[in-house]
């Protein structure tokens, strides 16, 4: 069940542009079934190091270079994905690195490597060919040296030396449960090869890379997208769905960039929440993490040392949407603790407004999220409905927060974030200002084309019951 794509690393939406190359890329081969077929064509060719795959035209273009070749440039592309042979782009080695085709050219003592085509200062018997990959002066392992890739050095006193390139297993270590692991190990602890995350065979799975962007589900590398004990992968063995990977631990000290702990509120997904809330939002008591009843689970506190799975406190050990817990009710396995409030935005309001803020004339120019406001006179990134000339009485100066349309929720502005047309500002209602009471409802209410439902479906409802 091994896919030829397993030998490639993909860069989605990317093209590799040759600069100053006498020989261009191969012709486009149209009508291929998928990228896997392109991989099958490229893999056995010694002069194919990468290929472009065009998703819409289903074509591939074989390339004799990679992003590390001289005079090439990566470029964003709306039509192509770039697949490059792992041996050429990985910075680490597998086994003893016989297949390594990277560009390291310095030995462990910092000596520059001698070009393989040169016999001076150190004479040798190796002749560069396409097969042995003895390019330029790059570290290679043509004789299967157990010490990994090496080279003849440019120092006449040191004939050759190892380059000290780390194995992929040693090149990156894991903290805690390894959710941050972004290394290049693609085999499980039993030696099985991993299935690519972007493939659904031999094992169908929900972890599509596009749906878990923050988890970096790259190629077929070990990852931990679901809060497991440690990184794992689906295997290419149809009889073994998934296995853990054997990766070294970084040490006992705290991992870098850990989310700051919060006690009375939570930020983001609440993975840093360390408070003592111990019921679900609906008041159902939580099950203790160290108990297996009424619900059996794998979140044993000892296996998740960094997650602080104390007592029955709400936590988020698996990257869920918010802190949660197993509940003490047999019929309800888990539930979120939405009663824990979100931490107030770090951005402190600098000013206040009265009423709906139509008369606010201050100079706050940031949204409640801290995004700078767009100038009222600007046309981009958002084309404004209200401009200094169209609404002269609204005092639309610079990019200051204003309320030209009498928005009942306060001053606002168009934002400089292309994805957010407008937002309310980092302002609060003044303390001496009473919130407006709700006025009397209008007399006439008319609705069109909404709020109607078919009575016929009520009969289905009865059948369902």
């Amino acid at each position, binding site marked *: 069940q091994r896919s030829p794509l397993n030998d490639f690393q993909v860069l989605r939406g990317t093209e590799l542009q040759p600069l100053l190359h006498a020989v261009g890329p191969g012709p486009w081969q149209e009508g291929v079934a998928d990228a896997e077929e392109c991989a099958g064509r490229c893999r056995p060719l010694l002069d194919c190091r990468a290929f472009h795959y065009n998703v819409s035209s289903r074509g591939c273009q074989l390339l004799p270079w990679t992003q590390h070749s001289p005079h090439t440039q990566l470029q964003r592309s709306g039509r192509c994905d770039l697949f490059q042979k792992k041996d050429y782009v990985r910075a680490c080695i597998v086994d003893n690195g016989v297949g390594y085709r990277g560009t390291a050219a310095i030995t462990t003592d910092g000596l520059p490597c001698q070009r393989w085509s040169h016999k001076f200062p150190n004479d040798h018997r190796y002749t560069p060919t396409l097969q042995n990959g003895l390019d330029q002066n790059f570290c290679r392992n043509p004789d299967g040296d157990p010490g990994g890739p090496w080279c003849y050095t440019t120092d006449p006193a040191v004939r050759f030396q190892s380059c000290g390139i780390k194995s992929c297993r040693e090149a990156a270590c894991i903290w805690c449960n390894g959710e941050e692991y972004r290394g290049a190990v693609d085999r499980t602890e039993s030696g099985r090869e991993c299935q690519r995350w972007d493939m659904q065979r031999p094992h169908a799975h929900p972890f599509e890379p596009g749906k878990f962007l923050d988890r970096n589900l790259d190629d077929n590398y070990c990852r931990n997208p679901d809060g497991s004990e440690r990184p794992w992968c689906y295997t290419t063995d149809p009889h073994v769905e998934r296995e853990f990977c054997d990766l070294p631990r970084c040490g006992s000290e705290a991992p870098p960039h850990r989310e700051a702990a919060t006690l009375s509120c939570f930020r983001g997904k609440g993975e840093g929440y360390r408070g003592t809330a111990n019921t679900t939002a609906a008041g159902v008591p939580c099950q203790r993490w160290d108990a297996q009843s009424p619900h059996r689970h794998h979140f044993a506190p000892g296996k998740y040392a960094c997650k602080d799975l104390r007592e029955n406190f709400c936590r988020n050990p698996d990257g869920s949407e918010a802190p949660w817990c197993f509940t003490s009710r047999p019929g309800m396995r888990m539930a979120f603790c939405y009663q824990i409030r979100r931490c107030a935005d770090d951005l402190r309001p600098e000013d206040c407004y009265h009423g709906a803020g139509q008369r606010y004339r201050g100079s706050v120019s940031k949204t409640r999220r801290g995004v700078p406001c767009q100038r009222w006179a600007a046309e981009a990134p958002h084309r404004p409905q209200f401009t200094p000339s169209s609404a002269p009485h609204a005092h639309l100066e610079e990019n200051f927060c204003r309320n030209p349309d009498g*928005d009942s929720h306060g001053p606002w502005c168009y934002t400089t974030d292309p994805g957010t047309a407008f937002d309310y500002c980092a302002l609060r209602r003044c303390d001496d200002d009473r919130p407006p009471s709700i006025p009397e409802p209008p007399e006439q209410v008319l609705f069109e084309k909404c709020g109607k439902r078919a009575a016929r479906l009520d009969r*289905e409802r009865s059948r369902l019951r």
Partner: protein
Amino acid sequence: VVGGQPGNSPWTVSLRNRQGQHFCGGSLVKEQWVLTAEQCFSSCHVPPVGYEVWLGTLFQDPQPGEPGLQRVPVAKMVCGPPGSQLVLLKLERRVTLNLRVALICLPPEQYVVPPGTKCEIAGWGETRGDNPVLKVASLSVISNQECNLKHRGRVRTSEMCTAGLLAPVGACEGDYGGPLACFTRDCWVLEGIIIPNRVCARPRWPAVFTRVSVFTDWIHKVVQL
């Protein structure tokens, strides 16, 4: 919904996480827009990659190929005004309206539902032991003044309440973000959004909802801009 009946609510949508699991309700207010509760998401500023809205089914776990089921990815989230507890979800494409999928009307700005009005909630959330189909329960609106007697003055003007019944009837886990719909002038109107309460379906305890009419102007503004 605890204490509800299997029912028909063609504007009630199911929000699905990246594993395809139902986690919240929502209301279809325009062909490409769903209104739901902010609490359903960890942040309304994070791109909602992988989230989907499912419509046109009565089942929490519809079978593949179920006729009428529409699955539409969420393209964008827009945070509601401060204190609203609302989020508008823009869908990647317009849904197809039919017998099973319909828009719910928005209330006029600042409209206050008269006490005693019969309304209904709908959702695929916790039922305390029943089969996972869309459940609907009928609830009666009470004034904020009456509601505040029980809630000790904590209910804001931007919220509204329904009476607590003797039997446990009300919204529960998984229903949050769904509609409180009231029948007005021959149409169902989205008057409230189910928000998490401390306890679900607590007997004799009024349920609190976000009052949609306070935010009607914002909804129109977001859709227009």
